[in-house]
Every structure is written in structure tokens, then in C-alpha cells.
């Protein structure tokens, strides 16, 4: 039975479609390096946030170890590319190794601790993530420690690579954009993100997704109907860890650098959390909107705050709070207010508009 969309839901879907279109044509629409950087980051974070939403929004599991899995993927690809030299075999091997480590760790954490209360699980994942962070900085011969690793991506993604050449052997330009390796790299990120997102979306609308929601809403009843709650939870924890790990590998290939700040730090975990809550928990669309808003804010809000801080130079404390480095302060406050007043986030709230009750 098809469900009639509310006007709000339609608006959200149109917005998401627009975002997807903008991302698809991003290299041609925004022709500077920074904008492309932002677009790629948005693609990766949409996947990362959506996979986190599988946990927190659909199943009601609060995990703080999501960046750990992202980091496993990143470091897997990074170490393979560093040790084996640039090549697709290194990318594949690194991504697989990262995914395998993620799976093993996720199964271990899941089986040990998903039986206990949500709060215990949150604490245990937090501790595990911090251990991973410490390990990354301690095993410096492998991970480069605090400095991270720089390496080269496969040759196809070099800026000097010519995708299409005209009769003179020069790079073909479309709409004034040279079709070089940078474009190839962006579309590699975009396509991978699209595929991962589509797989997750398919998962949420499948019968399995319904079971997950049932577990979130009433664990005891789901168990009583005959679903093995721990098995389902462990499964979804592993699935989301796997997706996060793959997203990490893709991002590592794009950035050509992997370090604690880009792949493992707790700041990324907070970003993901903010994105999920701002966008709206329990809908895949929310992940898209949240990731777009937050990444844009990260890149462009700071400029705005810098200007505001200078304008208020004479006032005590305010300039310090408006300092571009303090932007998390304001996001934190917005976050708290959102959890209070709009627990469904932007998308969830809009989608209810026009609903017949």
C-alpha cells in the first residue's frame, strides 16, 4: 500500500534531489578548488552520517565509535597506498583490510556489550574510540603518529592526467572546466557515496528496516514477537561500521593525507552527532540535509564569525565567544535547543507539516 506523501515530505524530497543535482554537477557549477573540496566532503559525510543514522535513528543505539570505523578505513587505504605505492590494488587491499578490521571489532564490541543498556554501550564505545585514537598516535611507524601519512593516489586521479584529449593532444574543456584527474577523483568520491547511500536506503525500506524500527520503539515486544534483538543490533552495528569504513577509504584516496585530525579525532564524532541531530534522526533524508548544512557552516560560517568578532572588538568576552575557533560553542547551543524543541531535527519537523492526523 503506497503511503501518501505529506507536503512537507515532498518539499524535503525536492530539496534532497536538488542537493544531489548540485553535487553531481559541482565541478562545473563551482569552479574553485575550495568549493570542490567542500562538495567532496559533503558526499563523504552524507554517507557517514547516514550510516550513523542507521544506528541512532533507526535502531536507537548510541555509539561513539563511529569515527573509529571511519578511521580504520582511512588508515587501511592510507597505509596500503604508502607501503605499496599508488595503484588500484593498494586501494582495494587497504579498503578490504580496513573493512575487515572494522567488522571484527564491531562484532566483538557488539556481542560483548549490545546486551546491556544503551548507556553502557555509549560509554564502552567512547572508551574504545579513545583507545583507537591513542593507538594511532602511538604506532607511529605505521600510522605516522600525530603527523599522519601523506601518500599518492592512483595515477588516474593526478591533476596532470588527461581524461579526454582533442586532436592536438590537449585536455578537452567542458563549460570551461578541464577534464583532468581532479574531476575523475571527484566523480570517484561522488559515485562511491551514491552507491553506499543507495544500499543503505534500500536497507531501511526493506523488511529488515522495519524490524530495526520495531526494536527501537519497543525492544521487549520485538523480542516477544520472535526477533532476536541482540542479533539484529549486532548486524546493524556491523553494517554501519562497514559503510563508515568504506567511506573512510574513499576519503583517504581523495585527500591523499590521513591523520588523526581527518580520520579519527573526537571532533569528527561530534560533527557526525550534530549532523544527525540537526538533520533529523530516523530518516535518510535528514542525513543529507544535516551533512550539507554542517559542512557549509564549517567552511563558511567561520568567515562570518571572524567579521562579527572584529566588529565587537570593544565588548568584553563576546569577541572571544565569536572568535571563529569558537564556532562549536554556538553549534553546541543550537544542538541543545534542537534536542529540546525539535527532537526530530529539521527534516523530521518539516516532514510532519501537512500530515493529516
Amino acid at each position, binding site marked *: 500500500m503506497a503511503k501518501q506523501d505529506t507536503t512537507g515530505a515532498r518539499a524535503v524530497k525536492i530539496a534532497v534531489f536538488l542537493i544531489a543535482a548540485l553535487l553531481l554537477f559541482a565541478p562545473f557549477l563551482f569552479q574553485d578548488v575550495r568549493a570542490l573540496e567542500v562538495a567532496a566532503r559533503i558526499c563523504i559525510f552524507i554517507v557517514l552520517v547516514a550510516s550513523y543514522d542507521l544506528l541512532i535513528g533507526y535502531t536507537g543505539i548510541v555509539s561513539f565509535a563511529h569515527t573509529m570505523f571511519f578511521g580504520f578505513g582511512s588508515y587501511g587505504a592510507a597505509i596500503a597506498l604508502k607501503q605499496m605505492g599508488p595503484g588500484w590494488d593498494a586501494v582495494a587491499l587497504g579498503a578490504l583490510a580496513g573493512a575487515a578490521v572494522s567488522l571484527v571489532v564491531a562484532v566483538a564490541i557488539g556481542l560483548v556489550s549490545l546486551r546491556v543498556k544503551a548507556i*553502557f554501550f555509549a560509554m564502552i564505545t567512547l572508551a574504545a574510540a579513545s583507545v583507537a585514537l591513542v593507538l594511532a598516535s602511538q604506532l607511529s611507524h605505521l600510522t605516522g603518529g600525530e603527523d599522519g601519512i601523506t601518500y599518492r593516489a592512483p595515477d588516474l586521479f593526478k591533476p596532470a592526467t588527461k581524461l579526454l584529449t582533442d586532436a592536438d593532444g590537449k585536455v578537452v574543456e567542458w563549460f570551461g572546466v578541464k577534464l583532468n584527474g581532479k574531476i575523475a577523483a571527484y566523480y570517484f568520491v561522488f559515485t562511491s557515496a551514491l552507491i553506499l547511500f543507495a544500499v543503505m536506503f534500500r536497507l531501511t525500506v526493506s523488511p529488515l528496516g522495519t524490524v530495526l524500527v520495531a526494536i527501537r520503539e519497543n525492544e521487549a515486544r520485538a523480542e516477544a514477537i520472535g526477533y532476536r534483538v541482540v542479533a539484529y543490533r549486532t548486524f546493524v552495528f556491523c553494517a554501519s561500521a562497514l559503510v563508515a569504513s568504506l567511506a573512510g577509504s574513499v576519503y583517504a584516496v581523495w585527500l591523499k593525507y590521513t591523520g588523526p585530525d581527518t580520520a579519527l579525532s573526537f571532533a569528527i564524532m561530534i560533527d557526525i552527532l550534530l549532523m544527525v541531530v540537526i538533520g533529523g534522526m530516523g530518516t535518510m533524508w535528514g542525513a543529507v540535509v544535516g551533512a550539507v548544512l554542517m559542512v557549509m557552516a564549517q567552511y563558511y560560517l567561520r568567515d562570518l564569525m571572524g567579521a562579527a568578532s572584529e566588529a565587537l572588538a570593544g565588548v568584553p568576552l563576546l569577541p*572571544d565567544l565569536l572568535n571563529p575557533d569558537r564556532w562549536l560553542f554556538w553549534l553546541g*547551543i543550537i*544542538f541543545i535547543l534542537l534536542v529540546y524543541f525539535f527532537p526530530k531535527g529539521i527534516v523530521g519537523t518539516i516532514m510532519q507539516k501537512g500530515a493529516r492526523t
Partner: protein
Amino acid sequence: MDRLAEQIGRFGGVNLLPVALALVAFVLIGAPSSWVTLTVAGLAMGLMVFLMASGLSLVFGLMDVLNFGHSAFISFGAFVAASVLIALNHWLVADSVILNALALAFAFIAAIGFGLVAGWLFETIIVRPVYRDHLRQILITMGALIVSEQVILAIWGGTPVTVPRPHFLEGSWIIGDVSIEVYRGFAFVLGALIFVGLHFLLNRTRIGLLIRAGVENREMVESLGFNIDRLFIGVFMLGSALAALGGAMWAGYETLITPALGGEMMIIVFIVVIIGGLGSIRGTLLGAIIVGLTANYVGYLAPKLALASNMILMMAILMWRPKGLAPAVK
């Protein structure tokens, strides 16, 4: 085998765990003097961590509220105390033990006072609207943690702050070939005194009786006509104040503090309350001492494993006793 278990149970059961740990470490370390130094350091660290963790554990036991923002009190306590000590520096360098001690006392009182007020604000503004909703609790207290970390960064800046120590707590006692830092001894004694005080409060007074009854069965206490909510604010404020005091003592112990301090301690505090069992003061003390000892022993024997060791310890104990070593009766 059963008889052995019974014997162990009679002599204190899980309470013997730190002793067993110390014995194993004694064999592994070999040198008695280093062992004594490490044990004292571990006990001192354990008691400071106990102060930080006790509030978290009690608040959870009484109200089923887990405050992820708890570490904010720890770092605020550390920074408030550091500021007071820096402001009173001329008392610290003075050649009078009384002035030295007064400066230290003021610093601790400032931290405690801050903890009480901030705890009250935190409870009424942040936590109260989300009672009995674990998901939103975790999110909101996490948000509050982000905001308070940013406030610390805005006020004190990102550079490490050097904390001056009172003169009479500098240096070490040398007994034979064993050297013990004076500050560690001081932290141990103060922590032990506060534990005894808390134990007395919980087990010998009427308020303590109500708190313990509330942890065990909240509805029953409420139906007997006691206002658990008011009691809870009190416990929350007390817990925050203890965390701030723990942070202040930790600041003096480390002597160099950064805004990242709260986050680092938070992991340890979590591990402690999980090991000890949420909601019980005795369990928290036990967990804190085990974690403190392990951290110091492993830090000496295999420095690279130091943080991972706590994690492994927690996993092992959770497999053995999923509710922690000495959980509160529910």
C-alpha cells in the same frame, strides 16, 4: 574450589582484587622500592579519580541519569582552582605554611563552590527536561559538554596553564630507598577522608538512608511521601562539587593543565564507574583504585599499553560480571 571461593568471600570477595593486583605487580616489578612508589602513586590517583567518579555514579543510581557532561565539572574545577592559585601566588611563595595552606584551601573552596552552583544550574536547565529519556539525555549532556569545553577555551585559551603548588607540598619524603611525593600522600589522605565522610553520610545519616533507599527503589520512597526530586538536586550538586574538587586536586598533581583534561579524565571516569558498578560508592572506590593501580603498574612495566590496559581491564571485568564488581542493589 567452592570452599576456596567461600573463604575468599569471607575475607572481602571482590574487595581483595586490588590486593591481588598489587601482589602480582610486586612479583612482576621485582624492585620493592619502585613497587612502593608506584603503589602510592596508584592509590593517590585512584582516590582522586574516585572523587571525580562518585557523583556520576550516585546520580545514575538515584535517578537513572547518566551525565556525559560530567567531565565539564572536572575541567572547570581544575581551571578555577588554577586561577585562584595563580592569583594568590604571593601567598604561595610566602615562607609561612599557614598562608600556603590558606591559598590552597581557597582554591579548593572556589572549585567546590563553583561545582555546587554549576551543578544546580546544570541540573535545572539541562537535565531536568529530559528525565527518563536516555537517548535525549546522552545527546543533551553531550551538547552541554561541547558548550562548556568551548567556554573554557574562550576564557582560559588553548595554551597549557601552569599550576603553582604550595611550597609545603613540593618535594618528596625519602624513607630508606623509597621516595614518595608529598603531593601524592596529601591527595591520598584527602581522598580517603572524603570517602570516609561520604560513607558516613550515606550509611549513618537520615539523608543517606533516603538516598540509598531511592537508589534501591525510587517509587517506594516517593510513595512514602519523600521528595526524591529535591534530594536528587542535592546529590547532583554534591556530585558536581566532588568532581570539581577532584579536578582541582588533579590540577595540582599534574601541574600543567590543558582544556583537553576533561575529555581525558572522562574516559577514565567512565571505565571506573563501569568496572565498579553504577550507583554504588563502594564499587566506585574499588574501580578507581583498581584503575589507578593498573595505570601506574602498566605505565611502568609496558608504557605503550597504559591506556589500552584500562580498556582491556574493563572488557575482562564486564565479561566476568556484566553489572560491575559491586553494583548497587536494584
